[in-house]
């Protein structure tokens, strides 16, 4: 009997989709596999590839088996194809096919739309690993290094997940798209990654934490809406990916939180109460809160652009077709068809920002972005609690959605973080107060000294409250291979 919960190791590719009895797809994946391994091996510096990293690996997709921790060398990590268990009699949760049985094969009329969605999702996965490839060299601790590598191997697995769907359901087109996912490179001139935010290098660890907090959260929201797909294999794939994605959210939220924590501690130790006394604070070897606010402004707004246009017929079509749902679609109380509903989206009228009612069907992107902002605001509130607890008067804020945008209704105008419309000159004059300057970047870079002694942390970041897998403080999360 085909076992769909447990991971089968009877092929080169661990899977719970019965690959060994699906010769066509197995062969295609085995052909793709060496290219993937080459991609991985060329990516991350060799001494890390040979190090033993305390990683979790899924041995099954049910709660008891999916998080097994042990030391593993990254190139030997068991990347595989894992889908959440099939829900019996699952129905399409939205759009014109609402209530029909979920598709187990791609309906012909939605083939290209579906393939495009999968390719875009798939393209972001290896891109982020490429963006983060050199961070291991400046890890503030072995704990953080381990978290980075866990994020990296799981992004690699997410690529596998998408590639499986392409090979299994999209024939030759799918195979070509899968090859292209390895051909494109983050930041490459000839073959860049598909989305802008994924072509920027992640230059330092604060950027990494901000990226995992804000940009991976876009990924989480996209996965949430694809998990609602009427195409059941896509839904099941994304549902399992979400469990892993939660770890990335964790790395981002606690990484930024620990940075803030350390800054506040250092300020208190030195008796500095003014958070804007930037030079003095930087002399302590920690990142001042105003700079953290600037980093937040940057990463949040870049991530907002990933949601696309506020009003989008593509998004409407995908929803109506039942290919992509809304965040927590099944928990929403409306008709799931949005035939007569409206939704308020941002617009710009007579020099003012206004929320305007538009047909809800066309506002799917905006709605997901609103859900994202709400989700993102929660963590910012928890960061502020750390500052408050330390007795420092400073509050981090998400900037207005109009600020620093390249896509959507705000793209061709300039706004302050509070949403005020500005002239070019006014904007330029304040630009460095709102977004990190080169000097800010250089300062952060100057703190990026590796700290590889078990249990020790670089001076700009506080240790975590709880170890991974309940490990004690001085646990050696990475056994470094010294070349």
């Amino acid at each position, binding site marked *: 009997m085909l*076992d769909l919960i*447990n*991971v*089968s*190791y*009877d092929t080169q590719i661990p899977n719970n989709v019965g690959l060994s009895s699906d010769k066509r797809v197995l062969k295609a994946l085995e052909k793709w596999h060496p290219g993937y391994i080459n991609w991985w091996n060329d990516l991350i510096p060799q001494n890390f590839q040979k190090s033993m990293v305390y990683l979790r690996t899924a*041995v*099954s997709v*049910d*709660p*008891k*088996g*999916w*998080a*097994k*921790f*042990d*030391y593993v060398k990254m190139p030997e990590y068991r990347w595989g194809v894992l889908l959440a268990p099939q829900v019996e009699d699952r129905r399409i949760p939205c759009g014109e096919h609402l209530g029909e049985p979920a598709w187990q094969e791609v309906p012909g009329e939605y083939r290209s739309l579906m393939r495009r969605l999968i390719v875009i999702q798939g393209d972001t996965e290896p891109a982020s690993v490429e963006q983060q490839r050199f961070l291991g060299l400046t890890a503030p601790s072995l704990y953080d290094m381990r978290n980075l590598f866990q994020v990296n191997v799981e992004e690699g697995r997410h690529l596998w997940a998408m590639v499986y769907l392409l090979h299994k359901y999209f024939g030759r087109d799918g195979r070509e798209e899968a090859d292209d996912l390895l051909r494109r490179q983050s930041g490459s001139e000839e073959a860049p990654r598909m989305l802008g935010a994924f072509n920027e290098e992640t230059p330092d660890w604060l950027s990494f934490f901000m990226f995992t907090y804000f940009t991976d959260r876009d990924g989480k929201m996209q996965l949430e809406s694809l998990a609602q797909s009427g195409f059941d294999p896509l839904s099941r794939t994304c549902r399992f990916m*979400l*469990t892993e994605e*939660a*770890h990335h*959210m*964790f790395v981002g*939220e*606690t990484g930024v939180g620990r940075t803030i924590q350390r800054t506040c501690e250092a300020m208190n130790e030195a008796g500095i109460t003014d958070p804007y006394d930037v030079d003095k604070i930087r002399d302590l070897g920690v990142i001042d809160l105003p700079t953290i606010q600037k980093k937040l402004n940057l990463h949040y707004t870049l991530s907002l652009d990933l949601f696309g246009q506020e009003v989008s017929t593509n998004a409407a079509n995908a929803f109506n077709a039942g290919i992509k749902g809304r965040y927590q679609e099944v928990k929403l109380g409306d008709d799931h068809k949005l035939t007569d509903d409206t939704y308020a989206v941002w617009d710009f009228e007579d020099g003012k920002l206004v929320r305007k009612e538009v047909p809800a069907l066309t506002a799917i992107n905006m709605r997901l972005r609103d859900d994202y902002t709400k*989700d993102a605001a*929660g*963590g910012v509130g*928890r960061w502020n*609690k750390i500052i408050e607890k330390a007795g420092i008067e400073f509050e981090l804020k998400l900037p207005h959605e109009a600020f620093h945008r390249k896509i959507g209704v705000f793209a061709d105008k300039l706004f302050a973080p509070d949403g005020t419309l500005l002239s070019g000159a006014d904007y330029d004059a304040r630009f460095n107060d709102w977004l990190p300057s080169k000097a800010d970047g250089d300062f952060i870079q100057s703190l990026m000294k590796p700290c590889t002694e078990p249990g020790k942390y670089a001076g700009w970041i506080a240790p975590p*409250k*709880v*170890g*991974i*897998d*309940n*490990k*004690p403080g001085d*646990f050696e999360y990475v056994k470094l291979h010294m070349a």
Partner: protein
Amino acid sequence: MGHLMTKPFRQHLIDPEICIRCYTCEMTCPEQAIEHDDNNVVVDVEKCKFCKDCIPVCPTGAIDEWRVVTEAYTLEQQYSWTELPEQEDIPEGEDDSGADGEAHDDAIAALLAEAHKGAGGKAKAPATASKATINLYNQGKPAEARVQGNYRLTDPGSDADVRHIILDLGGQPFPVLEGQSVGIIPPGTDADGNPHLPRLYSVSSPRDGERPNFNNLSLTVKREPHGICSNYVCDLQKGDTVKLTGPFGSTFLLPSDSEAHLLMICTGTGSAPFRGFTMRRQRETPSLNESLTLVFGARRPGDLPYFGPLKKVPESFMKKLFAFSRQSDAPKQYVQDKLREEAERVQEILKNPKGHIYICGLKAMEHGVEEALSDIARGVGLNWSDLRDTMRSDGRYHVETY
């Protein structure tokens, strides 16, 4: 459930300071016991059945919080928290809520509690041990293993028939740590026509398998006269299938810390967990020196399981002290005699804050070993019963006897 009890009980809670509100636990919980508002994620004490499905999926560790309470914290209270309340003082003796638990199965938990009783108090896992998975399979839903091999470990002439059994789990996940046990369900029914209850056996292979990265494990089983399960297991043939439950046990475990020095004292099949410990160390940190000491008792060399392979382990990697009680040309020696002979070595371990002691074998060995340890401790001015309690509550003193 719990709130109706008057006795103290354990309540499952989530630490709001650590939780990142990813709601993965909520999506995972089969009882819909977890919910959230804009502030917190909370556990409904009336619905939580302690299945712990939410524990491994939590990326932060915030989910693994427990408080012994006499009155449950309500959902409203939990929603209002910005931090977790401290554990309230519960008068000693009233708290019978159990620790993390060695098994979610009363009969098996009782068996393990009995086996660990010799430690003189509540057993605790080493601080750096990996987290054990327990109760993945039970009698209602056992795993099926295939016998890959069954080898006699004792001399043909010995009347002790101890066997090394290798079981292949195929595609079934069976994450087991060194020192854990599995249950075997013998086929057939008892005198009352009920299916036999599982018998517990310590796993004698390391976590990555008898053969590395093969999903198999080994057991060390002695044939007992009229033993229903031991005879069944010792007679297994290659290719037979066996019903397994478990894994069980969450305290008699190997510390991950490679600097931990282990003193392992055993007789007979009590050697099973130590074979696992040793192999794990050999695979993980083969270059370690002077950090393992094994004291192993049997009647004669031919009765001692794994005598051959053990002799090949270098003395620098593991110091081996064999005690034979029925050798024709030598005086009777028991494990406690070996301990006394090597008092200095034992004292070093007793004084070492990373020293761990493990005792495994027949109940009869407990008394003599404790007496020896007590005398050896006294020799360096240490009070054994205090030291033992400290070591045990540090997770550094472990007894499993039967």
